[in-house]
């Protein structure tokens, strides 16, 4: 109920953000029901029907293996959700834990945050590339790498926000009534950070899509057979002149999804506690 | 005709498509050499009235919806933006409540005053700078020729307020509006700043509107007082005649809630209740929910402005008839 009110307040009078939210709901539905929606097997190769124009039965045409682009795009939604959610979980778990603990236990925190500073000296994409060099191409590793990259910023942000809350009266009150450290951190401080974390999560989700697509494009992301929008662009880019639709559909899907996520994040950001607004790093 | 004449000023704030009145039929006048004190609790509309006179309501949700403001023979509300700006900071200047934040932190204070001077007067930078040094010594800032190059963060709150006064006086304004100029300052500094303003007034003949929530400050510095309550002038008079006999129960409440240093009062009386918010619909006199002597009439009818004594006006059905 509370969450509903929060969403209602955030999207009131914001048509574009509401459309973005609806688009994301559609993506989620497509991701869950991909086998029901996709008319063909996204991996099925058809040497005769290569590079078919959009039409019937191939709504978005076919690629250079004769695979149905529409079906691949539907399964791509699934990858989008998996990569986005996975990266958010890794970033928030790792970064969030480091940030909160550092702010609360200052001695350990000083040490940990210096480490975060050092990691932040590596630009995001470079760090992803370095990590990917050490790992094999897989869905899990892509999530891990992108998640770790954003864990550093998340740690910084949560560090700042926890510090602010630590000075609040309700924390002092909890300390005085003998509540344990960890309990204060997770039962008293964390609940206050849920909505700013939600905002940060939506921006990480958006960034993660762009990073994943870039890694796919460089041939360092998901394994080539995985039907992701980034891989679709990467594999078909040499056919851009002969079959331009192969690049238009996945590209537009990425843009719309990232744009929607940013719009949603922006709308949510305006309705959270103003104290935390400046901490969020987003578009 | 007085230097500034405000007549039936109406100000409203637009919220959710509705216009909520915040200032209603406010009238007063100020002349050269005079200080008008406007006193009232926060939210009574005194600051908005000041901003309306100054012309600083642009870009906000607050609109002037009626009345007139005449200044030096001009009808301010019919002037163009451009004509209005040529008066701001020139014939009419304002100082604000927050000396710590009212100066731009990235510019030297001298340059900020020079900007005001050169906006309105043809002067070279060097001439303007000399004038600034002169102004700074006028407002009693030590080492003015060095301090002119200071940044705001290098000065104390009291000094910054002096800088604000120097800036306001830089073009010899006819009217100075001071919105709670001493509220944010230490008590010892408060007195110095008020004395400084009074001193400058005798020297330059400036008219001053002093806005404060502190009846004590007003009584010491003003020739005339207007007491505002929820957007209306509850009581207005020459300072002496006002304190001689209080006509409005609200003014009495303000006075009773003030600590007096050399009296034996053991406790201070607070005015019961609070100022009703704008959204609350209210019939009759706006003060009736907090008034001990309110009658049926007060609940139903808004009191008209009546003359209590000569030059002493009040908006109350039973002026002066309140229990002491």
């Amino acid at each position, binding site marked *: 109920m509370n969450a509903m009110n929060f969403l209602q307040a955030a999207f009131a009078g914001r048509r*574009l953000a509401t459309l973005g939210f609806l688009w994301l709901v559609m993506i989620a539905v497509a991701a869950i029901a991909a086998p029901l929606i996709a008319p063909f097997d996204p991996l099925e190769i058809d040497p005769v029907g290569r590079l078919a124009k959009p039409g019937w039965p191939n709504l978005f045409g076919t690629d250079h293996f004769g695979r149905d682009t529409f079906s691949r795009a539907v399964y791509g939604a699934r990858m989008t959700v998996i990569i986005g959610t996975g990266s958010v979980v890794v970033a928030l778990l790792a970064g969030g834990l480091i940030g909160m603990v550092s702010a609360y236990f200052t001695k350990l925190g000083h040490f940990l945050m210096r480490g975060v500073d050092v990691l932040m000296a590596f630009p995001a*994409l*470079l760090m992803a590339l370095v990590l990917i060099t050490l790992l094999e191409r897989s869905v899990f590793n892509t999530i891990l790498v992108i998640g770790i990259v954003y864990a550093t910023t998340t740690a910084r942000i949560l560090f700042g926000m926890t510090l602010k809350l630590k000075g609040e009266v309700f924390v002092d009150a909890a300390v005085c009534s003998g509540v344990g450290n960890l309990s204060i951190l997770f039962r008293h401080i964390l609940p206050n950070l849920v909505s700013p974390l939600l905002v940060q999560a939506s921006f990480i989700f958006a960034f993660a899509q762009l990073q994943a697509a870039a890694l796919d494009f460089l041939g360092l992301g998901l394994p080539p057979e995985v039907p992701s929008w*980034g891989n679709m662009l990467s594999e078909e880019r040499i056919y851009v002149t002969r079959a331009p639709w192969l690049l238009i559909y996945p590209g537009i899907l990425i843009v719309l999804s990232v744009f929607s996520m940013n719009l949603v994040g922006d709308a949510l950001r305006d309705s959270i506690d103003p104290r935390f607004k400046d901490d969020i790093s987003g*578009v | 005709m007085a230097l500034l004449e405000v007549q039936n000023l109406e100000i409203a704030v637009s919220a959710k498509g509705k216009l909520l009145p915040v200032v209603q039929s406010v009238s007063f006048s100020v002349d050269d050499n005079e200080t008008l004190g406007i006193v009232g609790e926060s939210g009574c509309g005194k600051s908005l009235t000041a901003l309306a006179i100054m012309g600083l309501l642009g870009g906000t949700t607050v609109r002037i919806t009626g009345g007139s403001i005449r200044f030096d023979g001009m009808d301010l509300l019919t002037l163009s933006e451009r004509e209005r700006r040529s008066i701001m*900071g020139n014939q009419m200047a304002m100082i604000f409540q*927050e000396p710590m934040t009212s100066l731009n*932190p990235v510019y030297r204070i001298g340059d900020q005053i020079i900007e005001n001077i050169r906006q309105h007067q043809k002067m070279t930078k060097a001439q303007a700078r000399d004038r600034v040094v002169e102004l700074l010594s006028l407002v009693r800032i030590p080492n003015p020729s060095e301090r002119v190059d200071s940044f705001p963060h290098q000065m104390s709150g009291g000094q910054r307020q002096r800088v604000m006064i120097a800036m306001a006086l830089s073009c010899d304004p006819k009217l100075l509006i001071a919105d709670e100029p001493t509220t944010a300052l230490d008590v010892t500094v408060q007195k110095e700043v008020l004395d400084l303003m009074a001193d400058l007034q005798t020297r330059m003949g400036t008219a001053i509107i002093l806005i404060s929530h502190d009846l004590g400050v007003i009584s010491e510095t003003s020739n005339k007082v207007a007491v505002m309550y929820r957007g209306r002038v509850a009581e207005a008079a020459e300072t002496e005649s006002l304190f001689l006999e209080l006509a409005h129960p609200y003014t009495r409440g303000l006075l009773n809630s003030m600590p007096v240093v050399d009296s034996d009062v053991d406790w201070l009386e607070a005015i019961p209740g609070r100022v009703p918010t704008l959204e609350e619909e209210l019939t009759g006199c706006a003060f009736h929910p907090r008034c001990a002597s309110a009658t049926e009439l007060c609940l139903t009818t808004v009191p008209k402005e009546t003359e209590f004594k000569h030059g002493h006006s009040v908006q109350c059905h039973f002026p002066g008839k309140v229990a002491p």
Partner: protein
Amino acid sequence: MLAYTAKRLLTLIPTLLAASILVFLFVHLIPGDPAAILLGDTATPEEVAQLSSEMGFDHPLYIQYFIWLSNVLKGDLGTSIFFGEPVLSVIGSGAETSILLASMTMIWIILIGLPIGILSATKHGTWIDQMTSSGAMLAASIPTFWLGLYLIMIFSVTLGWFPSSGFPSLSDHGGITNLRYLLLPSLTLAAPNTALIIRLVRASMLDVSREDHVRTARAKGLHPTRVAIKHIFRNALIAVAAAFGFTFAALISEAVVTETVFSLPGIGRLVVQSILRRDYPVIQGVILVIVVLYMVINLAVDLAYARLDPRVSLK
């Protein structure tokens, strides 16, 4: 100012050392004999043994680090497996492209981002503001390689206005006109970053415009444009300048994708190719160079910050 600079330089050293340890460890995190990794598949056992003793791989890790660090400080970043040349000169050959690309991109970001950001903030709440700030968010949502591919399609393939790939050095035939090769790439790289700057300029200016000193400026009777530029934008610039430095430093690594799309011989493309070729000495070298560059630029920004905000230098 000098003392402040010295102080900031000193605080940089521990971070730099820590980062260098990470870069050093990079080769050791790859499974296998580090000497064999650094020499590639074609190396003979004798060569492996020789490098192993040169780099002290038979010694404890911290000694290896000091050997590596002293080599690095002498300018010896190892030898590229693929090119057979010193890593530093391989990186150097990509520097011209990368620096020119980043600089041109910065120029676009400033020329396009600042005016639109200011416009958006001064027209706050109007349709102009809604268009520009939503438009900026849309631009920040476009994958750069996709944008690059379509710019090539339209301006190189269809219209033939600009070359689609490569970049001959400015010292080659064509001289300064060779910059036209970088026009599309720099616009591509500028798009998302300009969008971020627009959003940042807008947000910072809106923050500043609510501050008390802006009311003081308006009370002087200044023209609204002068208030917007001299008082609001000037103060917002403090936050924006920090982002500029950050962006410029990040461009060197963000250029990885753009340089690949446009086949530019820059450092970014070198990283990707080296990863695909498993040319570890080059990867290690490039990371080190970029990280150092990133830190130095951020330091420069910090110092610029002190100039922009008089309150900083006192601390």
